[in-house]
């Protein structure tokens, strides 16, 4: 499949599959491809890691996980890989990334996310994580969210994407 078709397919699925009996066929018909081409390409993307997960993407907040804390840590360079691994193994932690510090206003280089039913639950989970992994010596900060302004999938292929700008991409009903 050529590069433009691949970009058009990515744009078509980045906001979800259609809820038709044969969603891959529906996509294929919109894009002028065959159902097999669509399925093969999605499988290839899963194999090569372009797609890291393919399935239902939940909204934590509506599912009752009202408290969402970004817990950020200041970890020395020689320890950050180890602490990152420890955090990623904790059940309560739903994301764990290293990011750069931006001194002087931002001192934290390890980011983790905890979703919980409420604020107290999240703080208790964090206290347990710190105790069980011996992290009390590292500075951290807890940034609870208090308003959600936008939540959707990453829009990697955009209207401005050069190769697509001349070809129209049909917008089917998406889920």
């Amino acid at each position, binding site marked *: 499949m050529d590069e433009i078709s691949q970009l058009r397919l990515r744009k078509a699925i980045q906001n979800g599959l259609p809820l038709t009996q044969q969603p891959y066929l529906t996509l294929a018909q919109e894009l002028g491809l065959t159902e097999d081409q669509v399925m093969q390409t999605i499988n290839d993307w899963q194999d090569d890691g372009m797609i890291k997960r393919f399935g*239902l993407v939940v909204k934590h907040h509506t599912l009752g996980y009202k408290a969402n804390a970004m817990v950020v840590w200041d970890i020395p360079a020689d320890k950050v890989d180890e602490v990152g691994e420890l955090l990623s193994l904790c059940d309560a932690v739903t994301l764990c990334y290293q990011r750069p510090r931006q001194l002087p206003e931002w001192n934290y280089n390890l980011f983790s996310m905890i979703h919980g039913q409420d604020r107290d639950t999240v703080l208790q989970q964090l206290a347990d994580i710190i105790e069980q992994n011996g992290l009390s010596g590292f500075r951290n900060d807890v940034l609870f969210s208090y308003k959600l302004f936008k939540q959707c999938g990453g829009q990697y292929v955009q209207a401005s994407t050069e190769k697509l700008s001349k070809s129209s991409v049909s917008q089917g009903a998406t889920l």
Partner: protein
Amino acid sequence: MNLLEQQLIDEYQKGLPVCSRPYLEMGNRLGASESEVVSALARLKENGMLSRIGPVFNHKKAGASTLAAMAVPEDELAAVAERVNAFEGVNHNYAREHKFNLWFVVTAPDQGQLQTALKEIELSGGYKVMSLPMVKSHFIDLGFKVKWQ
């Protein structure tokens, strides 16, 4: 939420079937009909339980992305958030309890367009953007384990 809806969330945050009739195959595995699966998914979507059914792309392979933050006076926050959201590349945007109180993810087809978008967002938002691109991931995304009550 009914049992089928819970099962769909438990079983299909990853490994959605890639075959001609995926909703039929999901139904076969969960003891439901194809149309029951489609209705359940439509309901979950309608009720705001799902963001979508589809791919979570790898940030690094799919394009360029970063986590960005702004420090905004509280009384301007909603208005600034709205201006930031107007950008197609902004996909998550939260108010958080910190001096940096607006946190959003920006994605773009490539690094050059990402930097351009960040500059435009800064200009439109009216406050300096702090960009914190991912250096390393320690996390394998297998979906979110919901504890049903």
